[in-house]
């Protein structure tokens, strides 16, 4: 199955990249953009077909490598409703 993991800076932490992009959007005329956070997206192909088992494996991957829990949050999308 295919899964998508999205990792992004935690909300309470200032994201300097996101702020620079927000300011740039503002500068070129896109008003009303209140905040931007820049993250990473991982498309992961898994041999596992059971969504719950896949989710558990992906969660472990996030904790161990894909995200740094000190400064980042993550979301896992296996395409199935949990």
């Amino acid at each position, binding site marked *: 199955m295919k899964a998508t993991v999205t990792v992004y800076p935690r909300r309470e932490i200032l994201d300097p990249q996101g702020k620079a992009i927000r300011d740039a959007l503002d500068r070129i005329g896109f008003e009303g953009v209140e905040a931007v956070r820049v993250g990473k997206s991982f498309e992961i192909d898994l041999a596992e077909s059971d969504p719950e088992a896949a989710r558990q494996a992906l969660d472990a991957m996030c904790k161990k490598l894909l995200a740094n829990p*000190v400064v980042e949050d993550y979301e896992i999308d296996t395409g199935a409703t949990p």
Partner: protein
Amino acid sequence: MKTGVVIFPGSNCDHDVYHVLKHVLRQDVCFLWHQDTSLGDTELVVLPGGFSYGDYLRGGSLAALSPLMEAVRRHAEAGGLVLGICNGFQVLLETGLLPGAMRRNQNLRFICQDVHLRVERDDLPFTRGYRRGQVLRMPIAHAEGNYEDSEANLDALEAAGQVVFRYVSPEGALDKAWNPNGSARAIAGITNQEGNVLGMMPHPERSCEVILGGTDGLALFASAIGVAGELLEAAR
């Protein structure tokens, strides 16, 4: 003392550290390859600066999973000396040997310049050659040196006396204008609770010879390896 400098793919300050240990301080030094699983009889391990694994994913994150880092972890847990400089500091954070994380510099730029550091601890293996409150000058060269942790963790870090170096003005005062990267609490270097693992963003190995513009970094290596005062004087 037996010293070792780790090479990850993308390390680029490894030879600088090797040069200081071998030619300036005349120590027994070897290179340690990231795929190795043992440190041999190395007593001081240095994780050098650079861009291990091209900084893919996050600075230091992939290097932290290399086979050698398991040996470094065991060495640290047994009380052995570990020094992480710049990218090496990031590796120590990603390994969990030191707390916290690095973000992009506040100004989003790669910063390469001299900074002033205030010594906050002079009782550690790495800082016995300094005195508390002393101001050192050495360069930084990084894009991700903006130290971050939760307020509670930062308070705990301060309370435990784990902040070793802070970015300060040339006179030694805390001042936002002299904090180059936006680090929380102006933190430039920290140690673990036991004091045998040190991580720092500035480059002491680039400040060990007069010809390179300064020698403020020399006492750090000399402290760690217990170099006799005469040799240190001669090197200066």
